[in-house]
């Protein structure tokens, strides 16, 4: 039953849902200019962000125990909202250049955001499922948005088929868990869990986790990531790799940490190791920055898995911080790539923008080069940037829970990752520009510029003052 008091707890969710519907109408009535719907959706996300921020310490279970608003879910929701906000800022210029700046784009993205928030707030498996599906269906559509490019169609098709298949796993897992416990309510399942560690429950849980590991990109289920991120419009890839991951991690982690599956620590550590190995080693041989970022997103899924393995409150804190840093650096890097792709002379046709074309970027437009350098260094985990602290907190939590060998492997692999990030930086700063566009500055529109600056500011701010995050989310330090 939804009663009136419950509604005021989920104001952010209502704002996003309502604005998804209203933006559809705005898109219909202002076909000529993309401006009204753009401004409206930006404001809507900002409003939701502010409302979540104001009520961040709430801890209630509402709507017949279907939703659970607590500080953890609020933190993950805010990170997802932030990611979508930055994506919105950068979207307009990029999409206009490609001729796909439809008003519906914004409302589909808002629908996806509604799905993510539903999923993160979920306290019932049915809610998880509906949220996840809303998010996934919107992602399939957004991936295939560049309908004239074969790559985009191919990646949308792949993503859709694999995603539908994996949804089957998830749903089957949910039904087995329901069969074993008699509940769909997550709190009740977690409460009875110790009494009913039956094989049926464990198989159900494994299938349930497989569904989520697919979305996060953990090792045996990571195959789709490079192809999908390469084919999708670049800003969308950035959003999927950040917000999508935040939503899946934010749903799964509270469940896993409460379950405290200590006897499966070894399995989780192996998965984490394989994921990091795969992402970092394969990334070494990439020559396309978009694909490189996709592989690095697999590697960061591995770092998150290290956090999941350590299963303590400390690791939730680390993962939350890492994801926040990740939104700024990964999304920032994707936005720089999108700006750069737009500047290529035949930007309308698909072409692989390889490292070669980034040669001499520092001479052509120093600001872009500085921004990209900061994002890549932060992804590699070099100290003064936010990414370093993210990795620091995760590895610290792992060491605290006696996973020293796993943290050693993780640190070694992050050292390897420095090689491929530095390769791009060397191309930008130490090589002469070549080709027909050499010497010209890369044109950057004001709004994309603003998005890059916000990401840059975030990377630097949380790198220099990591405490800001923990002062805001006081609950994370207990």
């Amino acid at each position, binding site marked *: *039953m*939804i009663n009136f008091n419950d509604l005021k707890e989920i104001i952010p969710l209502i704002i996003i*849902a309502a604005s*998804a*519907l209203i933006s*559809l109408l705005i898109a219909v009535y202002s076909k000529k200019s993309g401006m009204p719907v753009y401004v409206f959706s930006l404001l809507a996300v900002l409003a939701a962000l502010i409302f979540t921020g104001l009520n961040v310490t709430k801890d209630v279970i509402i*709507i*017949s125990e*279907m*939703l659970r608003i607590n500080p953890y879910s609020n933190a993950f929701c805010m990170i997802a909202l932030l990611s979508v906000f930055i994506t919105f800022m950068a979207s307009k210029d990029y999409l206009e250049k490609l*001729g*796909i700046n*439809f008003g*519906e*784009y914004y*409302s*589909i993205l808002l*629908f*996806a955001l*509604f*799905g993510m928030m*539903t999923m993160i707030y979920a306290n019932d498996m*049915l*809610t998880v499922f*509906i*949220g996840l*599906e*809303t998010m996934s*269906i*919107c992602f*399939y*559509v957004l991936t*295939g*948005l560049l*309908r*004239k490019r074969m790559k985009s169609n191919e990646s949308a098709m792949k993503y859709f088929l694999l995603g539908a298949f994996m949804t089957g796993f998830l749903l089957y897992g949910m039904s087995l868990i329901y069969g074993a416990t008699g509940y769909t309510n997550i709190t009740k399942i977690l409460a009875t869990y110790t009494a009913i560690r039956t094989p049926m429950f464990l198989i159900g849980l494994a299938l349930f986790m497989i569904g989520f590991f697919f979305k996060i990109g953990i090792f045996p289920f990571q195959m789709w990531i490079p192809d999908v991120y390469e084919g999708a419009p670049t800003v969308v890839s950035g959003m999927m790799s950040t917000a999508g991951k935040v939503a899946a991690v934010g749903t799964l982690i509270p469940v896993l940490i409460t379950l405290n599956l200590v006897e499966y620590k070894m399995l989780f550590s192996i998965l984490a190791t394989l994921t990091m190995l795969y992402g970092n080693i394969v990334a070494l041989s990439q020559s396309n920055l978009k694909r490189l970022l996709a592989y690095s997103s697999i590697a960061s899924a591995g770092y998150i898995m290290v956090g999941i393995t350590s299963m303590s409150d400390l690791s939730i804190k680390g993962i939350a911080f890492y994801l926040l840093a990740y939104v700024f650096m990964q999304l920032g890097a994707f936005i720089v790539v999108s700006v750069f792709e737009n500047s290529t002379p035949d930007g309308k046709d698909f072409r692989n923008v390889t490292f070669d074309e980034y040669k001499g970027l520092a001479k052509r437009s120093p600001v872009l080069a500085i921004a990209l350098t900061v994002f890549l260094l932060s992804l590699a985990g070099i100290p003064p940037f936010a990414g370093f602290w993210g990795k620091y907190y995760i590895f610290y939590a792992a060491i605290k829970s006696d996973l020293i060998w796993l943290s050693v492997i993780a640190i070694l692999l992050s050292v390897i990752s420095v090689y491929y990030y530095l390769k791009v930086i060397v191309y930008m700063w130490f090589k002469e520009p070549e080709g027909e566009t050499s010497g010209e500055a890369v044109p950057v529109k004001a709004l994309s510029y603003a998005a890059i600056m916000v990401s840059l500011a975030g990377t630097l701010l949380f790198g220099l003052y990591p405490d800001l995050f923990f002062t805001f989310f006081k609950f994370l330090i207990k």
Partner: protein
Amino acid sequence: MNIETIIFLVFGITAVVSAVLMVTRKNPIISAIFLILNFFTVAVIYLLLKAQFIAIIQVLVYMGAIMVLFLFVIMLLNLKENKKPSEYSFKKITAILISILLALLLGTSVYFGFQGKQMNEVAEKIGTAESLGRTLFTTYSFHVLAAGMLLLAAIVGAVMLAKKKFE
């Protein structure tokens, strides 16, 4: 013999016969039509079990939507009639044996599992459209709304991908 048993016998036998006929026919369209008959009889059996909602969904979704799709696809594919004489190959014989075994297994387990048992009162009420509707619009009202959003997003996405003009 009361009226329920008579209805059950009539529709149960029709269900089995139509299922067998569906598998054995050569022409796919005739097979599809027997499948429709089978769906209908199964829907009636659901009704006898007091599962009104599933019965209605069976008629609306399976008989209405999915079978129309089936028939359309068969007609669009324009299949040539298979002239090959039927032969009792190894494949066919194993298939028949396995299905008979499965039928026996399911039949015996259901027969001995539920022999002489009456449906309990709770189970009787669960399947009605009324109780389902009540649950959906009270406990699960949030999900109805969220599923509405999901469907709308899917429709908007499909229309955007299919209909937008690309210069």
